[in-house]
């Protein structure tokens, strides 16, 4: 089985760009990735494209061949939809296709256009990642679903909104130097606690923003990289995916996310690594509680221990295992169908040493990315390693 290398990465600015079409956003990211890789278009054998709500936001289904056309590719193109884990799945399937020997070069990534919709319509669109019969009709929104999990966590393990506020403060600090991030504004614990409540206990500053953006990666086999003398020091050495009941009410425990655990177990085994080997992490922090649940599901903390990680300084940029040096979904932004790809892009930059926060992890060799769909009814984990 061949190894898989990241030959080039591309991102658009994440943020409010309501006038820009999805096709324009994705083309920008994909062309940047191709340019950086030095791979000619004709060598790209497949496009794996992540998108969640394009049919609602742009009335545009069947986006993958459109995106291939916009990038000037003449190859099969498939859209992957797994709610907010759409691009994570697109990348994972690209890894699997290169490993299988079927393709040597695959373009993977994703895009979401969101800010052209009203807040109410975005809320409704995102809610479709929940169970239509038993959750959406009962008034569940995306922040509401995470609020239910946060309260269940507090009941079971303790912790409070102030612990969660430290997660938001940390991720905003991390976003400050990241040129692609939506927010370049430090915030304080008091500001998080005083922000308007969206869905108690999730406040406005516990939540990721609504974002437009795209991400793209050119993935190649070890042989292709060697034959073409590519500068591609970062490899994806592990991939895993896990699933769970769609509706929260059907899960055994509301304060844990077994899909993350399943994805992580598979990815660690695949890479021959364990949580202690991981130097730097990008996790799916769509809400502050989500970062806590992710760190526990990934095996970095026992259940109930992850909530104090940011407050204790363990996951800050200068902590022992920095989490979300990109700014995370919270401050970098969350264009849902692009997010999983952007995490792998950011991790690649961090490990290569060309991310503005690379100085915090200059000796790092192993990175991990975690992308979740809905209330973690799906999760995708990747392990990345850099040649040193």
């Amino acid at each position, binding site marked *: 089985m061949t190894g898989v290398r990241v030959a080039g990465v591309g991102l658009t600015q994440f943020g409010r760009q309501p006038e820009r079409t999805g096709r324009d956003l994705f083309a920008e990211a994909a062309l940047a990735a191709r340019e950086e890789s030095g791979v000619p278009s004709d060598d790209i054998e497949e496009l794996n494209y992540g998108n969640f709500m394009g049919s609602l936001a742009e009335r545009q289904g069947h986006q993958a061949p459109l995106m291939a056309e916009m990038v000037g590719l003449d190859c099969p193109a498939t859209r992957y939809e797994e709610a907010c884990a759409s691009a994570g799945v697109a990348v994972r399937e690209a890894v699997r296709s290169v490993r299988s020997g079927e393709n040597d070069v695959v373009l993977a990534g994703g895009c979401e256009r969101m800010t052209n919709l009203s807040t109410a319509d975005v809320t409704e669109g995102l809610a479709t990642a929940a169970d239509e019969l038993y959750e959406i009709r*009962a008034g569940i929104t995306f922040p509401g679903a995470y609020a239910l999990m946060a309260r269940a966590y507090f009941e079971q393990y303790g912790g409070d909104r102030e612990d969660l506020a430290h997660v938001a403060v940390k991720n905003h600090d991390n976003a400050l130097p990241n040129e692609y991030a939506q927010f370049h504004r430090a915030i304080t614990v008091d500001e998080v606690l005083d922000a308007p409540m969206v869905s108690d206990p999730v406040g406005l500053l516990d939540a990721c923003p609504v974002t437009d953006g795209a991400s793209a990666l050119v993935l190649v086999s070890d042989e292709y990289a060697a034959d073409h003398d590519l500068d591609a020091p970062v490899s994806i050495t592990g991939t895993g995916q896990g699933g769970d009941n769609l509706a929260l009410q059907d899960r055994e425990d509301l304060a844990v996310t077994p899909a993350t655990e399943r994805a992580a177990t598979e990815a660690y085994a695949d890479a021959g690594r364990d949580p202690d080997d991981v130097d730097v992490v990008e996790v799916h922090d769509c809400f502050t509680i989500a970062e806590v649940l992710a760190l526990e599901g990934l095996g970095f903390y026992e259940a109930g221990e992850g909530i104090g990680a940011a407050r204790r300084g363990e996951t800050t940029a200068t902590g022992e295992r920095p989490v979300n040096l990109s700014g995370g979904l919270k401050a970098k932004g969350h264009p849902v169908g692009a997010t999983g790809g952007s995490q792998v892009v950011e991790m690649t930059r961090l490990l290569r040493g060309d991310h503005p926060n690379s100085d915090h992890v200059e000796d790092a060799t192993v990175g991990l990315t975690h992308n979740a769909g809905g209330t973690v009814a799906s999760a995708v984990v990747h392990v990345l390693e850099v040649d040193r």
Partner: protein
Amino acid sequence: MTDAGYDEWLDAVDDGEGYYLRCPEGHGSLPPRRVCPHCGSTDLGRESLPTTGTVETYTVCYVGGPDFEDEEPYATAIADFGDVRLTGVVRGVDPEDVAVGTVVEPTVGTNRTTGDDLLVLRAR
């Protein structure tokens, strides 16, 4: 829109004859289902839904989607009914007075925005 399986279930709840599905292993689930989501058994029978449940977790939603704009703020809770849990809008109490442990009964109400039927967890 009609949704076979779900509509009948909601009507049964409205008539005070709520039920859930139970496999021989004792796993509970809600219709429509052809298999038990826990063990894959296709042998699903109907059991009576307990007449009361207790709130396990809840949220007070201040910003809902377009279908709930006339409800804000509203409390949505997940309540424990033994072998199954139900998610519903809590009524019969001020949203901000809902608590973990609040005893609720499953009923059917009307969504004030859309006029559609809605699973309501009515506080006792």
